[in-house]
């Protein structure tokens, strides 16, 4: 009986040490949790001016199939100093990250923002198309 107990204990200890040494791979390079979600889309978009008040003339039109965001801004909007805000599907993240004000004044060259799914396997580039009212 004692010998069986010792064997079981040894196996448990070995199993425990094996799992404890396993590399933690549930967090991505930004320290964000990698989940099992594959949803990958933009659900809402906002554009704020330097005074943190919206500069949109109308709600942004988000096409999740064509992967475009069309937004028209008010006359006189200073697009060199704006703060874009994306609302994404659960667990998604955005690339490039928005860390502060952005210069989106080059209307001829639409900016691309890539949405990355929660499982980090799906990447969808969205084209941000801005035009004046």
């Amino acid at each position, binding site marked *: 009986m004692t010998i069986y107990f010792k064997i079981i204990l040894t196996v448990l200890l070995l199993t425990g040490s094996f799992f404890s040494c396993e590399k933690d791979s549930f967090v991505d390079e930004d320290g964000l949790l990698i989940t099992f979600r594959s949803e990958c889309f933009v659900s809402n978009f906002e554009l704020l*001016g*330097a*005074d*943190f*008040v919206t500069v949109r*003339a109308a709600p942004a039109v988000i096409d999740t199939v064509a992967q475009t965001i069309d937004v028209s801004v*008010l*006359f*006189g909007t*200073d697009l*060199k*100093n704006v703060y874009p805000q994306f609302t994404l599907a659960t667990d998604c993240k955005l690339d490039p990250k928005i860390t502060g004000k952005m*210069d989106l004044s080059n209307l001829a060259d639409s900016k691309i923002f890539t949405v990355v799914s929660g499982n980090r396997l799906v990447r969808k580039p969205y084209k941000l198309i801005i035009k004046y*009212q």
Partner: protein
Amino acid sequence: MLYRNFNFFFLVWVLLTSLTACQEEEYILPEPISQLTNDCLKRTIGPSIASLPIEFAYAMAIPKSQGKLVSAQVEASIPGGTGTYLEHRSYYTNSGGVDIPVTIGSPSTVVDAGKSSKVTFTVDTNAATLRYYYIVPDEAKGQTVSFTFSVNSSDGKTASYKMGPYNISKMSIKKNLTVSNGTNAFISIEDMAIYNATSAAAIPDKVDLVYLYRASPTSFTHGLVSPGADASFLPGVTLPSGLKKSTKLRKVFGLQDRNLANLQFGIYVDDIDLTSVDMTDMPNYAIGLRAEAGVWVETADKKYRAYIYINSVNATGSAVISMLRYTL
């Protein structure tokens, strides 16, 4: 045996500890004040700005058996501006929260080349709280100012209380300037004044902004636009000759400075805000302004920065603005 002795001593120790722990601390009656004494507090919060008052409440008392109050005075390290005075009325707050004045002497006199304000008591009293209003003079900008409050009693004693030093802001303030579309529309940050087209033409190097109102497009409404801005932001405006400065502007919303907003709200713009605001790549126009909004301003020569607050707007094409200006 050893174990039993240990138990006994442990029990005695616990009993002694609990006995000490339960000992009542004897209350000691505070010593009554037996001499002339005083205290002071600063009632004004926010930055100390030239032309605005700093208010203090100076309290003084002497036991009745010792005598009565004879005089009270304040000495400032920098003479106060016009309007500086020590109240000749003592205030108490009634049950409704209203400050009720009681006259204790004649209005204060200014002595020592404007440095001191003095009130001589004309009533027989042994306690009073006097307000002191120090108007920050222009020459104090960027310096520190301190105050010495003192009181004399009939028994020949003097008590004094030092306050400060307090930093005086480098900002200048101008409140409630009315601008109107097409007439008094030209704003000078240097002069902190509004001009019409004729006056502006005489001082083109001093005009930093033009106020205009346009109902269309609907996002335009009230605007502050520098003369050097694109013509699309100055629709229908014929600038007086020589106006060409390109002033940087940054719109702000929700920054209702208490001084500019005529003592509403509880926000203050201070020197550090004007020196640290990032004006890089800011445009030379600000349109779509509304009441309680504001703009940070940096003049073309980078000599001044200012914060212009919109007190009120009128849809007929006028607005009331106030400004704080900082010399860089």
